[in-house]
């Protein structure tokens, strides 16, 4: 911890706080302010910071057509489905890698981890015809399946780091008592792992919610479009873009993930950094 007992140290500290804090937060403030400005105040060369006549018109316009609500719904289904699937798959795999001894366990885990170096777009090139073959191209299910790619490897490793720290004695004691392996996992280990599972769930939900590439590639029907491409395609390429509207929509589609983090960030930071920082 720094010692701020003299004038120079305090000035240095305040400068850092203001410069980096400004860099991180002022753009978001600007997004909020733009979204409540009437059109006439947005398109000026030297804008005022605060709106003269704040208005919620941009938000009203957003919900007057059903597109945004539909896209939010699509994202909720695909990101939620992808997150549930990822958590389920990675939990079983991580438990298996952490608590069982069998041939090929470590190589399998490292093979899975090495997937983080496979370029996403390159995977998509071959996932695309596969989904086409299975008749899942341009469907929500297809997108959910593809979303596994985003967080399965890293999610498995996060949960693995967590399971490793659960004492073997708990599991052994249950085995001696005659509990089945399935019972041990579901009734004894999983309740202890809920914080880590929430972390992985939120992590993969966020990846999927924020995704542009997968949805842009695998979804073509406007009625199945998710929020990322939805925002991009509705404001891109207009000669004079409706910036107020774009900022309002930006804020609305950010809210679900922002709220998720607001409630769960405590778990999250612990779970995320556990795997990468030596304790």
């Amino acid at each position, binding site marked *: 911890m720094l010692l701020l007992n003299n004038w120079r140290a305090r000035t240095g500290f305040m400068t850092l706080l203001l410069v980096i804090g400004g860099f991180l937060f002022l753009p978001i403030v600007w997004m909020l302010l733009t979204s409540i400005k009437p059109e006439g105040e947005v398109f000026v060369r030297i804008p005022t910071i605060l709106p003269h006549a704040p208005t919620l018109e941009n938000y009203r316009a957003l919900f007057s057509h059903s597109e945004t609500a539909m896209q939010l719904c699509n994202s909720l289904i695909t990101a939620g489905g992808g997150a549930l699937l990822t958590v389920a798959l990675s939990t079983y795999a991580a438990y298996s890698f952490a608590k069982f001894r069998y041939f090929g366990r470590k190589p399998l885990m490292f093979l899975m981890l090495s997937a983080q170096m496979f370029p996403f777009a390159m995977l998509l090139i071959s996932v695309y015809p596969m989904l086409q073959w299975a008749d899942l191209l341009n469907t929500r299910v297809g997108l959910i399946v593809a979303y596994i790619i985003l967080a399965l490897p890293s999610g498995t490793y996060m949960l693995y780091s967590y399971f490793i720290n659960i004492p073997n004695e708990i599991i052994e004691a249950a085995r001696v008592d005659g509990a089945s392996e399935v019972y041990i996992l579901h009734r004894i280990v999983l309740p202890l792992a809920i914080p880590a599972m929430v972390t992985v769930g939120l992590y993969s939900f966020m990846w999927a919610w924020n995704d542009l590439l997968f949805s842009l590639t695998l979804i073509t029907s406007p009625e199945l479009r998710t929020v990322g491409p939805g925002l991009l395609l509705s404001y891109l390429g207009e000669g004079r873009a409706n910036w107020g509207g774009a900022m309002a929509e930006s804020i609305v589609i950010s809210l679900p993930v922002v709220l998720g983090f607001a409630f769960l960030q405590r778990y999250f930071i612990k779970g995320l*950094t556990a795997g990468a920082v030596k304790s």
Partner: protein
Amino acid sequence: MSMASLPSTQSDPRAAKQRRSLKSHERRIGFAFALPSLIAFVAVILIPFLQSLKLSFYRYTIEMDTPRFVGLSNFRKLLSNPDTLSIWLNTLTFVVLTTSITLVLGLAWAVVLNQSFRGKAFLRALSLLPWVLPSTVTAFLAAWIFNGQYGILNAILLQLGVITEPVPWLAEAHSAMAAVVLTRVWVSVPLFMAFFLAGLQGVSQDQMDAARVDGCENIGVFRYVVLPHLAPTIIIVTILGAMSNLQAFDVIYALTQGGPVKATTMLSIEVYKQAFQNWDVGSACTIGVLWFLTIAIPSIFYLRILFKREN
């Protein structure tokens, strides 16, 4: 581990046999738990990857029904195309600049938030925001700030008298690259900060006090106590950051689509455009191989670190 924690049963052969079958039963169950995940991994990650590797040796464009084997022809074309080098250098510039700037800002911000002051917990939570926002949102916000006509950046610089005419930031090669880098830095600072903050928790107060007794000021304490302690974290965060910046697509594509001309076209953008706009799958996969080999460099260091930790 599980074997060591059980009492020895060597004296009783029947019990030993029972334990052995219990062991193999346990192994089978253990493998069964991993199986669904392994199947999913093979189906949506491993096979597609190998398939795309294979396609880099094929010619496969929109007007063809089936891919045709062409050997190394795609690679020859790739290497003789002057765009290849410039795209690769764009990627390198982007990754090196983004990762290093994020590292400095993330570390500084972690040090700031490691102090105790009122509202610190709130500020820490708030700091995650740029990382949490959807990438399209980030890109739109950046496009609005860097907007050549009505952007706030131009307005501020005009007011301060730094520039006399508005600058079309996203329409010129160097400033577009700078904008893309800054936007990506903005997204990644929170994550780096979180890792460093976790690392800072472990710095020993005694060592810091000792350094102060030896006459160190803040800078000295940071240099001789904090930094060495954080070294392993810095290494892994740099590697992970470089890997994810090499993968970056969404923010760049939504902000500039790789333009102006090809000034912000990274490997990720080029693969996407070749594959899903030109539908030249063979060429896309060939660039993909170059991309994969580039990501492999930091990845190998990452896997080595994990491997050492596990053994």
